[in-house]
């Protein structure tokens, strides 16, 4: 294209060589750094440095206090103390968020598939309906779930009519309620990346599979699913990461026997005030998630995440 323009405009008195705005060859080298500077600085000061300070505060001596300050004594025991005391909560967070993530994948995939490949003119409306929950307060929505699952609610009334639920059985304050809340709250984070990935799928590939006498189930597992893997990976991460650190669902829908590690960290920081152990827990959560994410990405083998 550039060549065409240069040949046709050659000889003109005001000719200047065709610019290459996109490649940026004519731009000064410092332009991108100038563009990055304010936002990058913000992220370094208010994200990277705080994380480094958090890492350092995990080794403080817990004998200190907010008023008198803490001493850096390289006390690695904060980690072993925290992890051994709260291993139940760690395991529970992992289990609940894994189950919720799988549940999101199982119910989110058909929805994303329907929007991307079956919705036609209803696509925008269905997409809005997926994003719609974000428009209302997270907390108020979770409280509404509490209403739905409550002992006197319609759901329980209906379940008590079945032989599986006695008059004393309940949904609220059980692991089921917490996992259902996590699934509900993070489902859009699963559906949107899946939709983005399925939307790029060329429908002709499925037609081709059909023409070659592949059964729909076979063409799903051999064509659709592999091609949507970037969406599956991104959606899994977007669901699992916030779910593992969440404490709102466990607090509002659960009971003391369903507390997750987020509840512990929050109350250690803001109520108990044992900062070094709280920092060790917070840091362990982050490190654990990073390791799991790294493993998952390595196994599923997609480099589109970063």
């Amino acid at each position: 294209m550039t060549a065409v323009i240069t040949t046709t405009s050659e000889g003109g008195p005001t000719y200047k060589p065709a610019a290459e705005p996109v490649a940026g060859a004519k731009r000064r080298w410092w332009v991108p750094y100038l563009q990055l500077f304010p936002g990058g600085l913000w992220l370094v000061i208010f994200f990277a440095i705080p994380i480094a300070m958090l890492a350092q505060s995990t080794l403080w001596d817990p004998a200190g206090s907010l008023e008198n300050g803490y001493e850096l004594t390289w006390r690695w025991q904060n980690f072993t103390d925290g992890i051994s005391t709260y291993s139940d909560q760690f395991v529970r967070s992992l289990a609940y968020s894994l189950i919720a993530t799988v549940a999101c994948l199982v119910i989110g995939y058909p929805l994303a598939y329907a929007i991307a490949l079956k919705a036609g003119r209803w696509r925008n409306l269905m997409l809005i309906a997926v994003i719609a929950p974000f428009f209302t307060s997270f907390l108020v929505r979770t409280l509404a779930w509490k209403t739905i699952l409550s002992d006197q609610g319609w759901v329980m009334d209906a379940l008590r009519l079945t032989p599986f639920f006695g008059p004393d059985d309940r949904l609220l304050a059980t692991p089921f309620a917490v996992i259902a809340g996590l699934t509900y709250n993070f489902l859009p984070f699963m559906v949107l990346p899946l939709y983005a990935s399925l939307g790029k799928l060329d429908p002709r590939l499925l037609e081709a599979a059909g023409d070659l006498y592949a059964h729909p189930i076979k063409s799903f597992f051999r064509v659709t699913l592999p091609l949507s893997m970037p969406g599956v990976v991104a959606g899994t991460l977007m669901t699992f990461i916030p779910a593992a650190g969440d404490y709102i669902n466990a607090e509002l829908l659960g009971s003391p026997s369903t507390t997750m590690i987020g509840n512990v960290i929050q109350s250690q920081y803001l109520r108990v005030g044992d900062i070094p152990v709280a920092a060790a827990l917070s840091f362990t959560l982050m490190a654990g998630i990073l390791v799991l994410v790294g493993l998952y990405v390595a196994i599923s083998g997609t480099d589109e995440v970063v």
Partner: protein
Amino acid sequence: MRRFRRWVADRWVMGVGLVVLAYLALPIAVIALLSFNQPSSNKTTYLLDDSGVHWTLNNWANICSGADDMCGSLGVSLRIGAIATVIATILGTLIAFALVRHRFLGRSAVNVLIFLPMATPEIVMGSSLLTLFLGTGVDPGLPTIVIAHVMFCVSFVVVTVKARLAGLDPRLQEAAMDLYAGPWATFRRVTLPLVMPGIVSAALLSFSLSFDDYIITTFNSGPVRTFPLFVWGANQRGIPPQVNAIATAMFAVAFVIVAVGQLRNARRSRRAATS
């Protein structure tokens, strides 16, 4: 029978999808229902018992009279959301331009710096910011909340604007340059209008993330109470029923904004396709 099986095979995915959508919409329906409910005391018990809904418009008519600081906290959240959105949108858009338009040294390091806040649980970001503010002796308050909100919104702005920018046809800008538009005129008359939908959705996303954030805010709020902090605190004592009216109104306003935007986009692309 065979035709019936065909019919089911064609439609079951859509059916499952609609059921999942209903699952997503259910709590919102409950909130809307409760916004018209007159609870027996002046707190929502979040119970719909056998007596059902006692219809009233009272919660809507006296939307601010539920608790003293409810509408105050709403105002605080709107203000924080507006400031944080403007700052995060500008910073994030600049970064997105740098990442899409340039190849430079340290590009992958920047990509990692953008990705990490999204891969870090909110509670870790909240507690680490608290460590920073404690360590530097900064008193938590409105500015620290804004700082925190900008921090976690920037990455989402970058991702959203980047997606839009990367999808632009570079030939449009080449054409403008070929028609002797200078770099600035090309940016203002061609690039910016084309990227605008991405910037607008990034701003909307930032605002809703900021407005709704509880976890990070609770670590850095000091004495300031945002709307989510108000709801959390009120939950211990009993939520004023007006909270449901506010949540329903928020939903309605945002839904209209997004729906209008989508309709305009759809009409524009249809016009572009026919002309």
